[in-house]
């Protein structure tokens, strides 16, 4: 029997999978989707994964999925699971291998017309300046002590070295420094993998995009966004360092699983009590990877600003290249939430989901107290991306979470079968989108048709009240990892 047969419609954008739907579920599953996306989630087994996550010891309220839900490794992508900090577990698979993979948006004071004739020059310079793809090393060489400082202090460490701006920090989650980082819990292999990778884009779905704001809601102005404005989006994560931390702790928790005695439906959901040595160590190492990821995006930002300075022969400040916001969409965070009138201390796992807090939450900071926390949503390279803001309703419904992107609609293999990289390149160029990519097969895997319709995903997020759209952008030029 399909899980779809057990699911109940709560409203047009919310579906509940009762805890009785499958043996072992401790809480219900809640999927924010319309009927079509729900059926897709069922077809690619992501719904099954929502049910699997509902079996995690100490999970509270529900195993949730955002509208961009699709099949992942263990946890679905688009999954949100909160566990009790005292009684519950933390699961490295609930964060994912690319710890603190995230997106940021840089503003400029330029309008589309002003970049039109120099777009080729900018994207070619970015292509030459931002290391990307397999086997590339970053432009920074860090020794062991420098790496430790960076893991502890986060983006502040780079800013102190003249990479990035002081004011960038207040436009980053946790002001660029995730608390509790403990480099002693990071393996030598993770240090070695990350050593040369600060300021590198990576490959897969990571990218830089020069975009133009196509539509802006009244709130956009308060955030310094306006129609016609050129902005730059960057998507990358913690690189080999974070991948190794995740791999290491999946092994460590796997080896200890006999002691914990959990029976889990998927070995990739391996976990440990938050208060166990393994759980605490993981959170200390994960925080290091989160800081590494923010530094990575901060260094990339520095190269982007340098490229614009060279092409436009003006300073980046003069060009208005302020950071709008930097958000992570793969992370576990210690947060307080109200459940049934009671305030609970939780670990909120977001895997392919973005924190979307209203301005009333202290974590959001003064800068966004009025607007709410910005949420940066990359679409596919052929259509749109969005800036959203968090909402009070999201706090009540989804632990303050929303989608993280369009979400894949097609596997990489299927995309490669259907799309040819060179044809795609030509098609996008015809549509006025310049593309630079490491290799063409990889580009085909990222074709617009391989993704869900981001406009639809955002519409459902708004319909469900999880976040509100502030600006919609379309791509002018894309650099793919």
């Amino acid at each position, binding site marked *: 029997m399909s899980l779809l047969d057990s699911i109940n419609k709560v409203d047009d954008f919310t579906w509940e999978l009762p805890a009785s739907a499958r043996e072992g579920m401790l809480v219900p599953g809640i999927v924010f989707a319309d009927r079509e996306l729900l059926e897709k989630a069922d077809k690619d087994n992501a719904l099954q994964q929502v049910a699997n996550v509902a079996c995690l010891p100490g999970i509270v309220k529900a195993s949730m999925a955002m509208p961009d839900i699709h099949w992942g*490794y263990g946890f679905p992508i688009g999954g949100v699971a909160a566990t009790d900090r005292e009684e519950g577990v933390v699961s490295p698979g609930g964060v994912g291998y690319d710890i603190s993979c995230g997106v940021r948006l840089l503003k400029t004071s330029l309008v589309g017309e002003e970049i039109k004739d120099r777009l080729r020059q900018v994207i070619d310079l970015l292509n030459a300046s931002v290391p990307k793809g397999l086997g590339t090393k970053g432009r920074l060489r860090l020794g062991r002590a420098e790496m430790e400082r960076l893991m502890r202090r986060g983006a502040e460490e780079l800013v102190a070295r003249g990479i990035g701006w002081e004011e960038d920090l207040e436009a980053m989650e946790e002001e660029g420094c995730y608390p509790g980082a403990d480099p002693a819990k990071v393996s030598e292999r993770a240090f070695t993998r990350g050593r040369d990778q600060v300021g590198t884009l990576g490959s897969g779905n990571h990218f830089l995009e020069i975009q133009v704001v196509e539509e802006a809601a009244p709130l956009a102005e308060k955030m310094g966004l306006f129609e016609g404005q050129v902005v730059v989006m960057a998507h990358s994560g913690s690189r080999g360092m974070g991948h190794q931390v995740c791999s290491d702790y999946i092994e460590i928790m796997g080896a200890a699983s006999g002691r914990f005695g959990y029976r889990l439906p998927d070995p990739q959901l391996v976990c440990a009590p938050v208060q166990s040595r393994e759980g605490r160590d993981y959170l200390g190492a994960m925080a290091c990877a989160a800081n590494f990821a923010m530094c990575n995006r901060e260094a990339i930002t520095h190269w982007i600003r340098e490229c614009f300075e060279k092409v436009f022969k003006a300073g980046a400040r003069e060009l208005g290249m302020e950071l709008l916001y930097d958000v992570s969409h793969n992370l576990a965070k210690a947060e307080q939430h109200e459940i049934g009138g009671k305030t609970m201390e939780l670990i909120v796992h977001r895997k392919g989901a973005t924190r979307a807090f209203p301005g009333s939450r202290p974590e959001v900071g003064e800068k966004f107290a009025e607007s709410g926390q910005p949420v940066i949503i990359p679409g596919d390279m052929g259509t749109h991306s969005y800036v959203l803001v968090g909402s009070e309703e999201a706090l009540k419904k989804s632990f303050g979470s929303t989608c993280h992107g369009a979400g894949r609609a097609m596997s990489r293999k299927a995309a490669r079968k259907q799309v040819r990289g060179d044809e795609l390149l030509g098609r996008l160029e015809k549509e006025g989108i310049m593309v630079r990519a490491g290799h063409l097969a990889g580009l085909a895997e990222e074709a617009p048709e391989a993704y869900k319709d981001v406009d639809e995903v955002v519409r459902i997020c708004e319909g469900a009240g999880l976040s509100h759209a502030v600006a919609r952008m379309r791509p002018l030029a894309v650099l793919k990892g």
Partner: protein
Amino acid sequence: MGIRAYGRSVAEAFENCALGMMSLMLEPERVRPQRRVRLSAQGRDGSSLLVAWLSEILFRVEAEGWAFASFEVDSCSEVAVAGWGSGEPMDATRHGLKLEIKAPTYHRLELGEKEGQWTAQVIFDV
């Protein structure tokens, strides 16, 4: 992104699985087997051994910059594997570089023998 590799022995399945993983990252047939690199890994059981073996190779590729053309396993128990990778330093101009692999995962991982044929199935996070 996943692969299913076969072998007449568990050692051969491990060799082929490693080669399959390399072929997702680059074109192994374009790599010259000029140097031999010692590889070893330990696990708790067959599944974790396979993950550890692939993680060891991934580390050599990503952190040490090796490109491998082939693999040879010379000892393989339930909890330890050792062998060689033959290749050369990675060269972006010659090796047809493709994707980075973040990690081999345990999701839908399979390792087993049926009528003398070993199968190893691994899904990678890319």
